[in-house]
């Protein structure tokens, strides 16, 4: 049996009401108004960081050494060349002898990655593969994409044992249907007429894939507990269900008015939400859309109960949110409008790539060392033990801090440092089990910080060096919030 053994998700902390966007930009095209809110990546997030944070959620209590590969699906890859999945593998502290690949080009890249991972496990070329899908898409100011697109990520671990949802079948269609596209030099999507995209693409391909799968495996749609497919237009989303004869309970809620259209991650995030409510024996149909469609048919096993409450998933993220009440701030976060950074803010140090390679585990995997003599964890990795009563030389073993929780020992909010979301928050973290270092703090306000509060680590983009084409990543501290 091959299928999903674990799942995780990431929804950014910020949400923007579509009314906020519309009141800023609705003058341009009054027809763009959409209901609800959407998830907005913080200024220090991108598709890689969200994929990592979803993957960390997915890997809770999982031995990372069993993973034989990372497949990453996204249409907003931070690097055109430099394997994005390779960055994720390093950050997740996986073995180097693994497969890794980026899946891109269409918003069905996430399901494509999932199918490829299943194929590899089924063929025996890998025992366990991590699949993540993430997107952080932007629309031009005043466009309907700007209203519709949300940010988020989903992650799955695929294997042939301890499966919580087995892949029972699939049906794929592929069409060179240009409802939207981005050329090599485009920053924003270009689109063809909306009515055509809706009626000739979205409203047709999804039913075609679903019906194709039903026919292929001789299934009846009423047998599915949940049917998961992305929502590009709420009315058409409901229309598809009606056309297929799905009952209201069978339609997985689309989250279009809470998270938005998260691109490659969209059907997979909805799938995570479906698994959170699934019972053993449930059949779930997961369908993507983008230059065609993949329909995947899963059956939930009784193993599902073992992981249900150990993942933050979609449910755990949905209500942890902060309203971003300024369109201008949103546009600045996404670099849609240039902001005054000041000369201090414009200073970006040239990343020394050979140094980053040498220190990749320290920087990307947050690896420190632990003294074998006195047991003190320390970051960054040391050769001479920092414990003043020990001082052992070269008696260290690797120690990973990224999955350790800690307490905020002290903090400040700095208005002199440049931050796109001032004041810059940072503080000193004392880790559970030992070890101390200082970190930027994100996804919170200065007023919420207290000496001694619990924090966890979150992977973030620390700087963007546009001159040299570098997205620089590191870990930041985030207050632990309980829903």
């Amino acid at each position, binding site marked *: 049996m091959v299928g999903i053994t674990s799942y995780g998700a990431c929804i950014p902390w910020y949400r923007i009401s579509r009314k906020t966007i519309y009141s800023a930009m609705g003058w341009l095209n009054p027809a763009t108004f959409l209901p609800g809110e959407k998830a907005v990546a913080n200024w220090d997030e991108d598709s890689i960081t969200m994929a990592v944070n979803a993957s960390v959620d997915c890997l809770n209590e999982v031995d990372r050494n069993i993973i034989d590969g990372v497949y990453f699906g996204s249409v907003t890859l931070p690097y055109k060349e430099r394997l994005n999945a390779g960055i994720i593998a390093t950050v997740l502290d996986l073995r180097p002898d693994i497969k890794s690949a980026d899946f891109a080009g269409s918003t069905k890249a996430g399901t494509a990655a999932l199918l490829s991972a299943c194929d590899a496990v089924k063929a025996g070329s890998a025992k366990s593969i991590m699949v993540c899908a993430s997107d952080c898409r932007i629309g031009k100011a005043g466009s309907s994409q700007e209203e519709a697109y949300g940010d988020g990520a989903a992650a799955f671990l695929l294997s042939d044992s301890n499966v919580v949802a087995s892949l029972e079948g699939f049906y794929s269609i592929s069409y060179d249907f240009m409802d939207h596209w981005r050329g090599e030099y485009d920053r924003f999507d270009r689109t063809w007429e909306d009515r055509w995209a809706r009626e000739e693409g979205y409203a047709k391909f999804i039913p075609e894939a679903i019906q194709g799968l039903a026919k292929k495996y001789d299934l009846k749609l009423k047998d599915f507990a949940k049917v998961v497919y992305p929502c590009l237009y709420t009315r058409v989303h409901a229309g598809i269900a009606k056309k297929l004869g799905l009952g209201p309970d069978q339609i997985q809620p689309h989250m279009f008015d809470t998270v938005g259209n998260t691109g490659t991650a969209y059907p997979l995030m909805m799938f995570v939400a479906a698994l959170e409510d699934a019972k053993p024996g449930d059949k779930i149909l997961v369908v993507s859309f983008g230059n065609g469609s993949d329909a995947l048919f899963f059956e939930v096993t009784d193993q599902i109960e073992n992981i249900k409450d150990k993942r933050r998933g979609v449910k755990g993220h949905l209500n942890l949110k902060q309203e971003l009440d300024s369109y201008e701030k949103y546009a600045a976060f996404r670099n849609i409008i240039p902001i005054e950074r000041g000369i201090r803010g414009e200073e970006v140090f040239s990343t020394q790539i050979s*140094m980053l390679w040498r220190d990749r585990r320290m920087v990307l995997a947050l690896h420190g060392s632990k003294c074998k003599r006195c047991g003190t964890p320390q970051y960054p990795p040391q050769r001479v033990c920092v414990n003043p009563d020990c001082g052992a030389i070269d008696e260290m073993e690797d120690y990973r801090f990224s999955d350790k929780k800690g307490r905020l020992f002290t903090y400040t909010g700095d208005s002199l*440092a440049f931050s796109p979301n001032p004041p810059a928050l940072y503080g000193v973290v004392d880790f559970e089990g030992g070890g101390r*270092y200082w970190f930027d703090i994100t996804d919170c306000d200065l007023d919420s910080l207290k000496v001694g509060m619990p924090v966890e680590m979150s992977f973030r983009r620390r700087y963007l060096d546009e001159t040299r084409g570098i997205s620089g990543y*590191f870990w930041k501290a985030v207050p632990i919030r309980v829903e």
Partner: protein
Amino acid sequence: MVEGIKDKVAIVGMGCTKFGELWDKSAEDLMVEAFKECIEDAGIEKKDIKAAWLGSCYEEINVGKTASPLSMTLKLPFIPVTRVENFCASGSEALRGAAYAVASGACDIALALGVEKLKDMGYGGLPGIPTLIGEGGARSWLIHPNTTAPGLFAMMANRYFAEYDLSPEKGKRVLAKISSKSHHNGTLNPKAHLRREVTIEQVMNAPIIAWPLGLFDCCGVSDGSAAAIVTTPDIAKSLRPDPVYVKALQIGASSGEELMYTDWDYAHVETTYRVGVRAYKEAGIKNPREEISMMETHDCFSITELTEYEDLQISPRGRAWEDVEAGFFDLDGKIPNQSDGGLKCFGHPIAASGLRMLYEMYKQLQGKAGPRQIKNPTLGLTHNMGGSPPWNEVSVVIVGL
């Protein structure tokens, strides 16, 4: 047994420029000005100087690397000249080089000069990236949080308040008293950059730079230079009736345990405590609260000054605020601190500050401090702390008659 350099080195000349945003002056201008006053004060000729030390920190901003910016500017005739850098302790580090050269007998007259010209960066505060890279090399850029100096010290204020159970309101008032006191002293000093009274209310209500520190909790950034000529006691006595003797000169650097081990409280600076202990021992001081006449401690931020009173064993742990409130460190108090206005009013051209502090102690001991004159001082202490509370370099110099 090694006993230190107490009374083996005398200061016979000092110079100090006016500090400030000196847009019309170059680093060379500042070096010449400080040197000119210094050598005239010492009453020697340039050819008498046998070795020199230059302190400069952000050489990439203005001064340049190596010692030749000093030797070429002053036209020193092919003598040994060394450039030293130890963040905010750079000026005192230059003095240490010169003093040790004299104490060891390697030469009989030596010059120490510190200079820093920071106001050519284009923005306020200390340099950003060079500071960051300076702290841990380029590796720091990859993992260091987005800090500036005010934030690094603000974290100490938040810890101090938590550790000793001071409300933010109470804590900020104590810190405000420290800044207000220094501003008063600065009004009496023509060489200070900032020369106006600032009330406790003004300090408390100023815009926040890094919580809980506001604008007036922070010292300024400025340009300046200061210099000292040191020699043997015998030569000193032949040159002037009132040489000032070095009683102790100690430097220390963080061990790394503050930032990476979990014992340190971030409510004091361990290096300052350790260096103070060594300096008192070298000077033979048993009870600093009773024996020290006056101080110039490193007041880059008000919280730094508050914790220094405890680290230098003037006030008991957690109770320096009581002494501050009682006016113990005011110009007319038991141990005046920052009689010249301190970093608070001079600003902080990094490598010049240590020698600027020494200049005030020197003038006070000679009775030449004008309206700021402290009555019959016998021992003055200067203290520099570079870097940040968990990661720093500290110097303590004690001088006396």
